[in-house]
Structure formats: structure tokens, C-alpha cells
């Protein structure tokens, strides 16, 4: 076995040398494998040594995340300047013609993701140290948290579809651990299971998509698949591209929580707030958008999965609109933010469908900052008032000035108010909808503008109910410590300026960065501001804020204010979340777990075993008579023959029992024997 491992070690080095296609980047890119590996190693190290360290393992997690953040910043700038496209791979085993590889990838898209995950992740980790202090499973939390970030980085670094599955599911299992962090409560573990299972349903799509695309393309590497796509080769791939692309989109629908697979995300609020912040901002939910971005040419080049694009646009548009409406009726501050994330994910996905690769990723980028900010600020509020319900808040502006200011910045950015980050990215998406042709794009455009209005409305509602009016909770709230407010301020800074790096006419850094790929990506960055679309989006948002002001600012009695909004029919529909959860539980999960499962179990014990045990019973029964025949029949054959006449009479008499069913037996048996005789002779 040792020699076996040694030969393999040689192969590894050879494989790296052969496969590594170094365009640029040198050591910086070839060492990028550290990015996913360091947090994964940190996760295991925390499990084993965490408790013995002075900060109970936090320092390991923070160190790993800080490293990723710094490396991410470095790579992002290096890639922007040097256009690094690098792909490293180590072969991990052969299955017939298929070679499995672990690898890592450095290009514009992955550098951008490393940057986002690393920077937002580091800030969340700093925040979590203070937020989670005193938690019963502090160490375990940071182990899972590192696994979460590490899984996401494995996914982002993946140069092939199989490793993508690995990262994809690692993120899923880490989210399961984190959502169920307080597993003493049955609801929390149920929410964790829900998240895992809904994702697993979507993973069926991922499995099938990967199998279809990988098998028909003959390779699992993105660079080779997309090269085939770009060259318009491979008729087999063309034939299956629609199915494969659709399956991959179903996978993206699961992780990026698109309607109707969005149900797990609001429940995922059961986890601690830093988890929500990281999950919604940088990891997990961005995975679906990332996947669409990674395989973008497959959906865009004529002859492949082009027909999936209307479906993507419609699903994304429906998500952004329907989930935005639900956010209007939530009373839990975190749930409002959760539904707003769903809505923003809808924008990103629909933008991918409209062919706006850059715009979708740009929205992902800016959204990471302001949504991370909003969640952390919400966490700060919750930490201070010890409740998630907005009915227990109000008037916090006076008590928590820093949190208030940063939250408002985040809200304005999310609502898309000029000149904050969200304005620029949302505007680009609306422009993309406008430019794309077809009914689906128009549908997305209308819902997109309506969504901008709804976004502004529910965010102003959240701001007014939380920070204005009178405080309605218990005790005296107070501003959070520095370790919590500093990440807020930093993220607020990003939310203010992040939009400028792709401002039309000013800069196209982001466009250039994400265009650095093995395959040439189209550049959809508008050269100048489209004033019409900007005005439409901005005025929808301002209208939303205005109506929010009218509805919620003056009236401090929030309950009464909400009552005004209770439109008949629509309100119950929204409150029950369109009954989708009920449909899944009562229509699918409960029947499967209950009657169906029991029926199968019964079938197993009573039908299949009927034959098994029946054969046993029959054998015993026959045996009994054979034995009786042996004992009394053969041994007393002579006596029997002597008494044959008398016995014959009494035996025949027995036949005349008077019981109908015995006669029936004879009739049927006689029929069988006679007919068989006729047929045979």
C-alpha cells in the first residue's frame, strides 16, 4: 500500500505540471489552492483543538477567513490588472474513461467571489466573536462556520462539475449544521432538515445536469465544455443542452432559493444571525447565481440551452415579485430581510436569464455588502432588545445611533436610491431587461420595476417600525460593543461606494474583472447612463419610500398601521406564504412519511413475507402429513388393506360432511383435474 501511495504521489506532481495551464499569475495563482483548503483545515482543527485555545477556536476560524480575505483582495486586483486565467488540477481516481480531479481555478469570476466571501466573511467572523460570546457551543459554531465558508470556496474554486457538486453539498451540510445550531428546539432542527431536503431536491437537478452535460461533452471541466460551446462544436451536447441546462437551473433554483423552491430560506432564520448574514450575503444563496454565471455561455450561445433562458427569466421575475410581497406582511425583522434576499436573488437570476452576465454578478457583488450590513445591523438590534419581533422594537434611533445610521444606509442601498450601491446594479439589470427581446423579458421588466417599488416599501416599513416611534420592548436598549459596530461601519462604507466601480461612463472595472475567463464573455456594460430606465427605477423606489412614510412613520401604533394594509384575500394569501409550505407538507412530505411509508412496510411484512413464511408453513404442513402417512400409512398398510372396505365406506361418508365449501373444493379440484386431463391426453 505504501508503494502504491508513493507512485500516486509522483502522478500528482506530474498531473499538476501537465494540466496546469499557466497564462499568468505565477505563484499567486498556483498557490490559490490554499483558499479553499485553509478554511477546511481550520474547521477540522477547531473540532479537535479548538477548546484548548485561548479564544476557543475563534482565532483559527478568523485567521483562516482573514487569510482568504487578504488573498481574495490580492487576487482580485492582480486579476484585474493581469488578466489571470489559471486552472490547476490533481487527479484523484479513475472510473473507466472518467478521471476525477480536485482543482482550483483563478479567473475574474472566481477572484470576485473569493473577494466577496473573504471580505464579507472576515467582517462577519469579527462580528460573530462578540455576538456569539457565551454560546453553549461556541467552538462548534466556528468549526461549522469555517466549514460553511470553506465549502463555498471549494465550490467557487471548482474547475470541474464534479468538484462543484462537492462544494455545493458541503455548503448544504454546513448550512444544515448552522441552521440547526440550537437543536434542542425541535423547530430549529426541522428548519435545518427542511433546508437540507429542499436543497437535496434541487440537487437531483444538479446531479442530472452534471451527468448530462459532462457525459455528452466528454469532459467535466468548465474550460473544455465552454470551449466546445463557444466553438459551436459537439452535436451531442447540442442535443442534450436544453435538458442539461434546465437541470442545472433547477439546481440553481434550490441553492439560490427561487420560487417555488424558496421555502427553506425564511425558515433558515432559525440559525444565529451571523449565519444568516453570511448565508444571504456571500455564501450559499449566491451559489446558484454563480453556477449560472459559470456556465453562462451554455445558455447564451445559439444552438445550446438558449430555450432555457425564458424559463429563467420568468422564474426569477416571479420570485422577485411574489417574495417581495410576502416581505410586506412579516413581523419578524429577520424574516423581512430574508424575503428581501429572495426578491433580490430573483433580480440576479432573471438578469442571468436576460443575458446580463455582468449586471447579475454586479448585483450579487453589491448585494453582498448591503445585505450583509442589514443582517448584522438587525443582529445588533436583536442582541440589544432580545426579540426578533418588530412589535417589540421602535424608537431605537435614540438608543442605537450607529446601528440606526448603518441600517438606513443599507436600506437605501437595497431600495436602489441614487448614488448608493444598489442603484447602479439594479439599474443595470433593468436596462438588461429592456434590451433583451421577447415576452419573458418584458414580463421581467414590468415585475422588476414593480419589485423596486415593493423593495422600497418594505424596507421603509422595517426602518420606521424598528427605529422610529416609541420603544415598545422591555428594558433599556443600548448600543452594541465596538466589535459589532465596526464591521457595520465598514460594510456601510462598501455599500456607499461599491456601485461606483461599475458606474457607466465613470469606470468599468467590474465588467473587465468578470470578463476575464477562459471563454470570451460578451461585454454588456452600458457605456452611458440610460436615463429613462434609471428614472423609472428611481421613481418607483422613491414612490415606495413615500408611501412607506405615509403609512408607517406618523403612526407609532404599528399594529394599527399594519391593519391598514390588510387587504382582504391578498393579506391571508401573503401571510400563509401562498400556501406553498402547506402544499409541500400536507401534499408531499406527510403522505410520504405516513401512509405511503407504512404501506410499503406493511407490504414488506405481509405480502413478500407471505410467500416466504407461507412456503415454510406449507412445507411443515406437507411434512406433517407425510410423516403421518409414513407412520400410520406404510406401517399399517396390511391392516389398512384388510379394513379397506369398511374404511372406504367411512372415508366416503366423511366426504358427505354437508358443508358447502368442502363440496366446492371438490368441484373445483375435480374441474382442474379433468380439464388438465383433457388437455394433456
Amino acid at each position: 500500500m505504501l508503494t502504491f501511495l508513493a507512485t500516486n504521489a509522483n502522478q500528482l506532481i506530474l498531473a499538476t505540471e501537465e494540466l496546469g495551464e499557466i497564462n499568468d499569475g505565477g505563484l499567486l495563482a498556483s498557490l490559490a489552492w490554499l483558499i479553499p483548503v485553509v478554511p477546511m483545515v481550520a474547521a477540522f482543527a477547531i473540532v479537535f483543538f479548538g477548546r484548548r485555545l485561548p479564544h476557543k477556536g475563534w482565532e483559527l476560524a478568523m485567521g483562516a477567513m482573514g487569510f482568504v480575505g487578504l488573498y481574495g483582495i490580492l487576487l482580485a486586483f492582480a486579476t484585474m490588472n493581469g488578466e489571470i486565467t489559471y486552472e490547476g488540477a490533481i487527479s484523484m481516481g479513475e472510473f473507466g474513461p472518467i478521471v476525477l480531479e480536485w482543482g482550483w481555478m483563478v479567473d475574474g469570476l472566481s477572484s470576485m467571489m473569493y473577494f466577496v466571501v473573504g471580505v464579507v466573511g472576515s467582517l462577519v467572523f469579527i462580528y460573530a466573536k462578540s455576538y456569539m460570546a457565551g454560546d453553549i457551543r461556541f467552538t462548534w459554531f466556528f468549526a461549522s462556520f469555517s466549514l460553511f465558508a470553506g465549502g463555498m470556496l471549494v465550490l467557487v474554486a471548482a474547475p470541474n462539475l464534479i468538484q462543484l457538486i462537492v462544494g455545493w453539498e458541503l455548503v448544504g451540510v454546513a448550512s444544515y449544521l448552522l441552521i440547526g445550531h440550537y437543536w434542542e428546539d425541535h423547530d430549529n432542527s426541522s428548519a435545518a432538515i427542511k433546508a437540507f431536503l429542499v436543497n437535496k431536491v434541487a440537487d437531483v437537478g444538479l446531479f442530472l445536469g452534471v451527468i448530462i452535460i459532462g457525459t455528452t461533452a466528454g469532459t467535466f471541466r468548465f474550460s473544455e465544455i465552454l470551449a466546445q460551446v463557444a466553438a459551436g462544436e459537439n452535436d451531442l451536447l447540442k442535443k442534450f443542452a436544453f435538458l442539461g441546462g434546465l437541470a442545472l437551473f433547477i439546481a440553481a433554483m434550490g441553492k439560490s432559493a427561487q420560487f417555488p423552491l424558496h421555502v427553506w430560506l425564511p425558515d433558515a432564520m432559525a440559525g444565529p444571525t451571523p449565519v444568516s448574514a453570511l448565508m444571504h450575503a456571500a455564501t450559499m444563496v449566491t451559489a446558484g447565481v454563480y453556477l449560472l454565471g459559470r456556465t453562462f455561455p451554455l445558455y447564451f450561445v445559439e444552438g445550446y440551452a438558449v430555450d432555457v433562458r425564458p424559463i429563467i427569466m420568468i422564474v426569477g421575475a416571479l420570485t422577485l415579485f411574489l417574495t417581495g410581497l410576502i416581505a410586506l406582511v412579516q413581523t419578524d425583522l429577520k424574516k423581512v430581510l430574508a424575503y428581501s434576499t429572495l426578491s433580490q436573488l430573483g433580480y440576479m437570476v432573471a438578469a442571468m436569464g436576460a443575458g446580463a452576465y455582468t449586471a447579475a454578478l454586479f448585483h450579487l457583488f453589491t448585494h453582498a455588502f448591503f445585505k450583509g450590513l442589514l443582517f448584522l445591523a438587525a443582529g445588533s438590534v436583536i442582541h440589544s432588545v432580545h426579540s426578533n419581533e418588530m412589535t417589540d422594537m421602535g424608537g431605537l434611533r435614540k438608543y442605537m445611533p450607529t446601528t440606526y445610521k448603518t441600517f438606513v444606509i443599507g436600506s437605501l442601498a437595497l431600495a436602489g436610491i441614487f448614488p448608493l450601491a444598489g442603484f447602479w446594479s439594479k439599474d443595470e439589470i433593468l436596462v438588461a431587461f429592456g434590451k433583451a427581446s421577447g415576452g419573458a423579458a418584458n414580463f421581467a421588466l414590468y415585475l422588476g420595476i414593480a419589485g423596486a417599488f415593493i423593495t422600497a416599501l418594505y424596507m421603509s416599513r422595517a426602518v420606521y417600525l424598528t427605529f422610529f416611534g416609541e420603544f415598545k420592548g422591555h428594558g433599556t436598549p443600548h448600543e452594541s460593543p465596538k466589535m459589532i459596530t465596526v464591521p457595520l461601519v465598514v460594510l456601510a462604507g462598501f455599500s456607499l461606494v461599491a456601485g461606483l466601480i461599475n458606474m457607466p461612463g465613470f469606470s468599468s472595472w467590474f465588467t473587465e474583472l468578470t470578463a476575464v475567463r477562459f471563454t470570451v464573455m460578451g461585454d454588456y456594460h452600458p457605456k452611458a447612463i440610460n436615463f429613462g430606465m434609471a428614472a423609472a427605477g428611481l421613481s418607483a423606489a422613491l414612490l415606495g419610500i413615500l408611501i412607506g412614510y405615509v403609512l408607517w412613520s406618523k403612526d407609532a401604533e404599528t399594529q394599527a398601521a399594519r391593519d391598514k394594509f390588510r387587504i382582504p384575500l391578498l393579506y391571508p394569501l401573503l401571510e400563509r406564504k401562498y400556501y406553498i409550505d402547506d402544499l409541500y407538507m400536507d401534499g408531499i412530505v406527510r403522505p410520504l412519511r405516513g401512509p405511503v411509508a407504512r404501506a410499503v412496510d406493511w407490504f414488506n411484512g405481509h405480502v413478500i413475507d407471505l410467500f416466504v413464511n407461507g412456503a415454510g408453513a406449507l412445507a411443515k404442513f406437507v411434512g406433517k402429513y407425510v410423516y403421518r402417512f409414513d407412520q400410520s400409512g406404510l406401517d399399517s398398510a396390511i391392516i389398512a388393506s384388510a379394513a379397506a372396505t369398511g374404511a372406504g365406506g367411512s372415508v366416503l361418508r366423511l366426504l358427505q360432511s354437508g358443508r358447502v365449501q368442502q363440496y366446492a373444493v371438490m368441484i373445483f379440484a375435480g374441474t382442474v383435474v379433468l380439464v388438465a386431463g383433457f388437455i394433456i391426453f
Partner: protein
Amino acid sequence: MSFGDWIGQLENWVFAVLAFGTLAGAILVVHSRNVIHAALGLVLTLGSLAGLFLLLGAEFVAWTLVMVYIGAVIVLFLFGIMITRAPLGYEIDLSHPTSVKVTAAIVAGSLFALIGWAFLDAFEAVEFAAVDGPTRTADIGISMFTNYVIPFEVMSFLLLAALIGGIVLARQDPEEADE
């Protein structure tokens, strides 16, 4: 016809589902220890049979079966069950002991083997003749009231006799009722 081809046809999947329903119901009828379940098993069997008739294109027969059996006969059965005070829960007394069951199973099994073998031998893989749509109810009516009008009349007479017989049998004697 290979199994792969067979399974590739949609109607065979429908058939499989219906056949499963038929057999499951039939097993329930002969094996259930609960009277009501047995009666409901008969509903399942007959319902699935009706489905099979539809599959075969015998629409009129299918709907007649549904109406007469599931609509009327089963109700009659349930009445019979209630009146004879058959216990509604589980009961062990509904069937004979295992030894009798085994005998019955042997007889029924050999009957099945015989018929099944005869069919297999006779029809092998004969497929249905080209189907040009389901049988029209009008055709059945015309045939019944021209070629088969005498059996039809005999049948109506039989029903009348059954009606009278049923009343005579089930009617309580006035003297008994008084007691």
C-alpha cells in the same frame, strides 16, 4: 415483444397500475380480517376493472359496472354486513383456520396455473387488433335489441323473479314480528 418494448408503452404502465389495484383489492377481499375493509377492497377491484374496461375501449360496460356495482351492489353488501351484525372491527372468525386456507390456496393456485397455462399456450404474444376507437354505445344497443333481444327478455324476467324472491325471503313473518 421484449420486456423493454413492453414497458415502453404508456398504456402498459396504466395497465400495470390498474392491475395492481385489481389484485390488491382482490387480496383485501379474500384476506382482510375486517369486513368493511373487505367490502372496500371489492370497490377497489371493481373500480380498477372499470378502468381496465376503459383502457380496452368498452366504455358502456365500464360505466355500467361503476353504476351498478359500486353504486348499488356495494351498498347492498354494506347493508347485509350491518344487518347480520358482522363485527365492524377486526375479527379472526371471518376465515377458516390455516389448514383449510392452505387447501383452498392449493386448489385456487392449481386452477390459476391451469387457466394461465392454457391462455399462455393459446395466445402467446397475440396483440389486440388495430383499434379504431372505443365501441359505440349505440352499436351495443342495436345489437342487444336485435340479435340478443330474447336473452334480454329472459334476463328481465329473471330480475323480476329475483325481486319477488328477495322480498319473500327477507320479509319478516307477521307472527314472528309480533313476538
